[in-house]
């Protein structure tokens, strides 16, 4: 009896697993991208509703105290703080980059770009893919590869697009990479996404050592991100004269669990 049950469940397991593998292979084909994007947009309205219910629950619980007021105040102050931190980093960056160099590189500040504000309606289902789902898609001019920012700086990149929604791969995703320079020392390096602090691998330059508190700002090297976007501040540095690279940890300016609105840069195409 138990043997029959086992063989039935094994048969069902093998059948379903095979069907899902076929689905994976088919849905990865370039010709299926449109259908896949449409399918992924199907849940977007429900997710937006869930987010809205979550906000309502938050508001309802505030009846037991001034939690909502304090939270709103805290958010406002956090927002102001992030804005000030971003401005400070930009001033540091401005001091580092001389005007002629910027003109030569035809450098444009983020604020000069065409943008679209999007609401975060969902988050990635597991810790391996730190992604966000937003409520703007191809119908709103959003395309794969576009840069996503917030008031606190760089958030990530649009990875997949449906008609009315898109999936954004954040910098916290372990698969994310971004080339940056440090605002004080000018050292260049690569940010690698991570579940806690972002890891930074820095070039080893004689006479220059990264220091705590420096700002990591996108360098534009590689063409993946525009130059000048704030990523975060350095919280620890590991330096060895014998090593070929230095490593550091960067405190990301954004908290993906707290992001509710993001800005999609519509007119930057990664090279």
């Amino acid at each position: 009896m138990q043997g029959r049950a086992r063989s039935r469940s094994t048969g069902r397991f093998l059948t379903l697993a095979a069907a899902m593998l076929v689905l994976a292979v088919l849905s990865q084909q370039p010709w299926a991208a449109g259908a896949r994007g449409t399918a992924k947009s199907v849940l977007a309205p429900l997710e937006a509703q869930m987010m809205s219910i979550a906000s309502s629950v938050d508001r309802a619980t505030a009846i037991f105290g001034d939690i909502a007021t304090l939270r709103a105040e805290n958010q406002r102050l956090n927002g102001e703080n992030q804005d000030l931190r971003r401005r400070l980093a930009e001033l540091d960056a401005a001091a580092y980059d001389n005007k002629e160099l910027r003109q030569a590189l035809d450098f444009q500040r983020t604020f000069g770009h065409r943008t679209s504000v999007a609401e975060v309606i969902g988050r990635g289902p597991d810790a391996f893919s730190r992604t966000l789902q937003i409520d703007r898609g191809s119908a709103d001019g959003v395309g794969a590869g576009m840069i996503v920012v917030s008031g606190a700086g760089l958030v990530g990149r649009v990875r997949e697009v449906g008609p009315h929604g898109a999936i954004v791969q954040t910098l916290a995703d372990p698969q994310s990479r971004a080339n940056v320079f440090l605002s004080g020392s000018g050292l260049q390096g690569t940010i690698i996404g991570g579940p806690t602090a972002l890891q930074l691998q820095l070039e080893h330059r004689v006479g220059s050592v990264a220091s705590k508190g420096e700002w990591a700002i996108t360098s534009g090297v590689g063409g993946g991100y525009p130059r000048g976007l704030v990523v975060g501040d350095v919280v620890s540095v590991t330096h060895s004269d014998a090593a070929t690279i230095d490593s550091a940890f960067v405190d990301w300016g954004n908290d993906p669990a707290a992001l509710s609105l993001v800005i999609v840069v519509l007119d930057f195409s990664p090279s």
Partner: protein
Amino acid sequence: MKFVAGALLMLVAALVQVTWASQLEIAAVFPNVVLIVVIALTWTQGARAGLLWGCAGGILLDLNAPGPLGPHAVALLCGAYVTGFWARNLDRESPLHPAGAVAVSTVLYSLVLIASDRVLRLPIPTFATAVQLTLAAALYHAALMPLALIAVRHATAGLHLEPAAP
């Protein structure tokens, strides 16, 4: 009726997963509500039901993840299959076994996701990051499993889902 109730349960679990679950982050991991519900369903209703709902829940997660449709479904199927095997051969009443089953299923789930990303030539996390996230998630899920079992038993009783033969 049974099918609709089960589908609704998985839909709610998936929506909770992609909207609220990240608020429960501890040590860089947050619980996978769908995985926990699938393992709890497998434990209480048997492997065949667990496989079916694992497949459905996996597709719902795939709809919210980057990449092709299917990898999360395969990962959940593996977890449900192992849990079904476990439940058939060990003491179903012990609270430690379901916790162990969900921990093992979490490890399998992570391995399948990483392997499928590799096969599909998608970028994968570093080994150290993957190990750290997987172990933390396994412990987290094991701690939540007793509560999940109570909740699923309540929900399935209210929805008139009868426990399946082992």
